[in-house]
């Protein structure tokens, strides 16, 4: 049912936790199934220097947040702002159709954290965000 990448991230999720003095924080809940995700980012010089999250959800939800955290850590914020759920799904080696909403959830959590950050740092907001 799940790809090996999903299984691997689910078994050893990266970057789990909270950042007490985060620069951006997002929390989302899925209306589909009640999955819940909160994501913290730390930004320095236009780059994501740290990211943490906690996820309540199935293997796909946990793996989606884990791989998303890896995909953004160390990246410039304009690049991170363009991370879509499709890219997360792709990076996971695909997801079962019924689980696509898990990668959407991860993308939404990231978006919420960025929104929080940009609201405090409007000068850094990319034009199309």
């Amino acid at each position, binding site marked *: *049912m*799940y790809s090996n990448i999903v*299984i691997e991230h*689910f*078994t050893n*999720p990266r970057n*789990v936790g909270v950042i007490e003095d985060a620069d951006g924080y997002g*929390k989302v809940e899925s209306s*589909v*199934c*009640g*999955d*819940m*995700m*909160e994501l913290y980012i730390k930004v320095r010089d236009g780059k994501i220097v740290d990211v943490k999250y*906690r*996820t*309540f*959800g*199935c*293997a796909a*939800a*946990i793996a989606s947040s884990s791989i998303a955290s890896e995909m953004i850590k160390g990246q410039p914020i304009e690049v991170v702002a363009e991370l879509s759920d499709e890219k997360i799904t792709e990076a996971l080696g695909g997801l*079962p159709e*019924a689980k696509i*909403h898990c990668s959407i959830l991860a993308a939404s959590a990231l978006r919420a954290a960025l929104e929080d950050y940009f609201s405090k740092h409007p000068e850094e907001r990319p034009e199309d965000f």
Partner: protein
Amino acid sequence: MASRFIYLDHAATTPVDPRVVEAMLPYFEEKFGNPSSIHRAGGEARAAVEKARQTVAELLGAKPSEIIFTSCGTESDNLALRGVAFALKGRGNHIITTPIEHHAIGHTCEQLAKEFGMEITYLPVDSFGLVDPDDVARAITERTVLISIMYANNEVGTIEPIAEIGKIAREKGILFHTDAVQAGGHLPLNVDKLHVDLLSLSGHKFYAPKGVGILYVREGTPLLPIQTGGGQERHLRAGTENVPYIVGLAKALQLAYEEMESEVARLRSLRDRLIQGVLERIPDAQLTGHPTQRLPNNASFVFKGIDGEAILMQLDLAGVAASTGSACSSGESTPSHVLLAMGIDPLLARSSLRLTLGRRNTSEDVEFVLAILPQIVEKLRAISPAYT
């Protein structure tokens, strides 16, 4: 991947017993006749089917003519509900059932309501999933044609007071069906003691193959066939008989009866050890279903703050096959309708885990689960924002 394989999902399906496979094998290549053919090859197949029917009838305390072989538990349930609803549509359009039935009943009731004008009353259940027989009596109206209440619940294992409900139905002259699919092999099935008019069973829950079932139909019960064609199964279920599986089903039911007493005792003690161990070792773990009036092989829980499917996947990676509830809804992300009906909070209901024991399980299996499950729950809770 773990090479260990501990199967704890016997409520979803069971492996076919080797003795059942052996009983079936001659009917594939050798005694392959169509029971409706009148030559000897047909006669041989007919004899095998009728012998199986006789065996099943004896075990249920029924007449052979009251046993209809079907293609699965779902078909048995559909035939009971649709068959009675359509046969009695001139008399009434009201069915009484519960909100904790298997989808084979629940979704069928929904379709009968939506497409065929039936009215459905869903009785309440208490926090253990128990139906109150008095509620059944109160729900009966002039237009009631059928009461359908499951014998034992497939998710939480709660056993309903079927004999009591059956008496009420009998007194009021209302037909009574029970979905006994989960009871098969675990609980006595005497149709007279249960006071049922219709009773569904499915082979693959008691070590016969998937794809064969039984509907017991008490003599005189009005039933419109829902699968028409040749005159098989007394014109109530057309289609060439699945001779090997029918033979296997009867064999499996017979074995289950022969071994029931000792096996139920064995399962019950494994189950109690499992339940006790989980509740002791895992904080905020809660047993679902009735503490004692439950299937001997069912241990089901909710673990606050985490997702049942995530637990299940972790167990799977460790070589333990489990379920969040029913197999049919695995992959569905909505919380169990059974747990919700029992008044469990939707978020808590999402954390359900069902462990169902079977013939091959040993106390080592139970100890292994008790060794790994606490860590799994702890680890998932550590990454969950919902556990506090």
